[in-house]
């Protein structure tokens, strides 16, 4: 029988040392809602779980003087939507945190873990992209930063080097008159994986869009930052015409596959529809309203 070791370091340095010692058979354990399932299914030759939840830096949720938020990589989803300030500042991330798995899963699952798992359909990743999150990484050679849109490299693969771990995410302070929204399409109403997910960020000056970011999930090997769609919105009047034009770019940028969760044609159409719905939600939030959280 295969025995798996468990370690609970209390500092990032100790965790990095354990990763260095055990190589790729050591796995960082945050909520475990993906990892434990993968190990049970024998998908990974895991020898050691390095539990990150005992490291204060990985479970912190702090706002600095300039409004920048640092989100520990192992912080569970429920802490995000349980924090009123976080909800006001980062609505798209909260939209995602509320729909990952189920209420029970959200008590354990973390946004950092969702990102490291690097699933093309990971709900939090488009939301992090539209919020311009920065990944703070620690490893044998010290610390470095990675823009979140560059973090995932392929399905299930990320840009962490051997011995590296994700420590936290830095979320810039939301600019004034801005809003975000994330939503996904699933055939059912819960306990499902996005057929397509879409996140949007809008900043306004009056009716005019001054900044915009759009990201899609499940339409490419990694969550997709659709930079051109955001740029096309800048200088436009916020509204249906501009949103439809941006959504066309999103649809044309999406390069989905046919699989058991959806077809190419349907995912293209959903990229178009969900981009518009995400933009409407972001606009409502930027204008001080609450977007409807439709599926």
């Amino acid at each position, binding site marked *: 029988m295969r025995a798996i070791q468990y370690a609970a370091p209390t500092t990032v340095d100790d965790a990095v040392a354990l990763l260095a010692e055990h190589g790729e058979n050591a796995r960082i354990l945050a909520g475990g809602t993906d990892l434990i399932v993968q190990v049970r299914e024998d998908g990974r030759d895991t020898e050691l779980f390095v539990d990150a939840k005992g490291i204060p830096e990985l479970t912190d949720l702090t706002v600095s003087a300039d409004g920048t938020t640092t989100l520990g990589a192992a912080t569970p989803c429920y802490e995000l939507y349980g924090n009123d300030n976080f909800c006001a500042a980062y609505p798209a991330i909260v939209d995602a945190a509320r729909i990952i798995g189920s209420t029970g899963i959200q008590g354990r699952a973390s946004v950092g873990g969702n990102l490291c798992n690097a699933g093309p359909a990971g709900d939090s990743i488009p939301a992090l992209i539209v919020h311009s999150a920065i990944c703070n990484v620690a490893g044998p050679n010290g610390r470095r930063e990675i823009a979140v849109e560059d973090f995932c490299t392929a399905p299930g693969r990320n840009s962490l080097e051997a011995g590296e771990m994700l420590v936290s995410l830095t979320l810039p302070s939301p600019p004034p008159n801005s809003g975000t929204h994330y939503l996904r399409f699933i055939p059912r*109403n819960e306990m499902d994986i996005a057929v397509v997910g879409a996140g949007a960020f809008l900043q306004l000056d009056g009716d005019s869009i001054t900044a915009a970011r759009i990201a899609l999930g499940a339409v490419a090997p990694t969550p997709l930052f659709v930079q051109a769609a955001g740029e096309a919105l800048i200088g436009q009047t916020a509204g249906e015409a501009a949103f439809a034009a941006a959504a066309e770019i999103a649809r044309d940028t999406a390069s989905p596959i046919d699989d058991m969760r959806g077809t190419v044609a349907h995912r293209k159409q959903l990229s178009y529809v969900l981009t518009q719905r995400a933009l409407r939600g972001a606009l409502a939030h930027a204008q001080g309203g609450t977007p409807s959280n439709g599926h």
Partner: protein
Amino acid sequence: MAVETRTGRTVKHHDNTYNVIGTTPIRHDGVEKVTGEALYGSDINLPGQFHGKVLRSPHAHARILSIDTSRAEALDGVHAVITGQDIPEPADKIISGGEGDGNLLKYKTENILARAKTHYHGHPVAAVAAISPHIAGQAVKLIDVTYEVLPAVLEVREAMAPDAPIIIEDLLTELDDQVISETPSNIAEKMVYETGDVDQGFEESDLIVDREFSFGVVHQGYIETHNATAHWLKDGNIHVWCSSQGAFSIRSELANILDHPITKIHVTPMEIGGGFGGKTTSYLEPLAALLSRKSGRPVKMNMDRDEVLKATGPTPGGYVRVKLGVTNAGIVKAGYAELAFDAGGFPGSVVGAGCKCVFAPYNMPNAKVVGYDVVVNKPKTHAYRAPGATHAEFASETVVDEICRELGLDPVEFRLQNSAKEGDWQLDEPPYARIGHIECVEAARDSDHWQTPLEQVPGKLRGRGIASGFWFNVGLTSSAIARLNSDGSVTLLEGSTDIGGTRTSVAMQFAETLGISVDDVFPIVADTDSVGQTDVTGGSRVTFATGIAAHDAANDMKQQIIAGLADLWEMSEDAITHRDGTFLTDGKSLTVREAALLLTDEEIFPVGRATVTPERVGGAFTTHIADVEVDGETGKVEILRYTAVQDAGVAIYPPYVEGQIQGGVVQGIGWALNEDYVYDDKGLLRNSSLLDYRMPTALDVPNIETIIVEVPNPGHPYGVRGVGEVPIVPPPAAVANAIHDATGLRLRDLPMSPARVQAALTSQNGDQT
């Protein structure tokens, strides 16, 4: 003590009143179930037991060139490895399948463990027993199998084509037991049912609608996975504990597959976490028995979800064509249908039942139905809740809707005008006895749902659909043994696995007959040595047939009590009467309890018993109404409101009937909208998990409103009709008809997934521009 859990209402078409029937006592197994004390198959742990695991085919269709088990056998902790060669060479004989479909023993055996070929992805190839599940799992991976991969064929019409890869090399097509193909074919059987003059009927029709439909494979989705523990004793006795819809069926299958005396096989049915027809046959039981014989220890086996979806018995995918002819006044003149169903890797689909159901709700003077049982490289299909009827009636009930639209007829009036009724013809079956289809349609018409117009919202696509359904139900054989205890209570042994609360619904019929409280009846689901022959819990038959056994056993006990009292009182039995639970004679009156005290004190212990095979089963009809909203941008369908009206004959325990109706409807909605086996181009199943095999969750369905109609079945002493299966039949048609009402689209392929609906909307928009 009683619980009040009714949510719906009852429309009675009789004046019978009862003391126990129709009440809602606390179920006998309720406390055990809700406290977690009830024992399921995986709770069985025997001293010294080993754990078994199965090696499964990674290919959809392959020849097994060699199997080398030496590395697995050498692994520390491994005690037995078996392959197809360890099962006795099957005799060329027919054995009975679960719900009536005959099967060759050799196919059954090869499905349990492959011999020369693997017929589908997940087909068992070898099995291992080891000291732990982990070591067994490791050992399975050490078995070296060399395959010659063969081209796979998955779709029925492709499998029927003359140039299709042949899956069973000596299979010839039969029609009425005569071989009709000259060369090997994937079509195992063709069947033709005909009545009247169908050509003449179409001649007399003003409107003929002829449509084609297709279906994906759908699984029953029971939450408890298959499990079995077997102990092959040194004297040749074999004890088996398993999750099954019928312990006697498992015993009989084991006797055949293992070529072993049936009296030496002892099967104990454990509590069951769902079956829906899928647990009426064996998968692990023979493997556990063979591994036990080889290892000398008890062997316990459990499937995981991936194994259940890949390699148990889902309901077939397939093809249906329905052609219906009517007059301009809306009178049905003729029907023609073709049904081709996946048998899976071996012959024996439920296509015959589908053929006989396709036009069942209607009085059809001229009809012809042709069925094909087709072998494909998918798991051997099996029964699922009204097997075959949902496919067939999805097709016919949407064609009926189309005809009503075309002719401007009210779909309720159309059904009332053409409905089958007592004395009407049935395809290849005796004429209908008293049935309740008209009463169901009337109750649907009069329901709050049908009478309340669907609220339309600007920008939303909303629609309403209606559809009826029929299922035969079955009788088969049931037994009951009742022992009168000294305190007046009764221990009631029965052989029917309790899936839907049948311990209580059967005990209630016993209590009603003997005139005692149901709280004084203690029902026990017994093993195969302790009660008379009892066939599977399937075909909606337990409350009907085992209920008759309980009724007859109660009357037997009543007669024995009278005989005992007559003996004691030295009088003729005729002088003692029984009324409302009291034994009366001149000047004397005894309750059952008082009689029990008196008799047992005199060493008289009445044992009532009955074994029955009732024939007058009483078919079940139902009519459903669905309201939907279609998202015109994404293709997603939401069920806004749903009402199911069903003839239960007489509802013994109305909330259980409602539970069966609601469960069937939810499964039917899952089938309608999302459930589907997704195969890749190599024939490998891609969605063998409950994440990607999308059954509805609680958020995907509204409360299912129910109306119970009671048109008593003349073939049962209290009028019972089976209720468990028919509610799955109408949902896909009701939902499809509602989608049409909302969008103008006719969807004829299940599931009506968001991608399919979206594609149809896109081409509809394209047609308009």
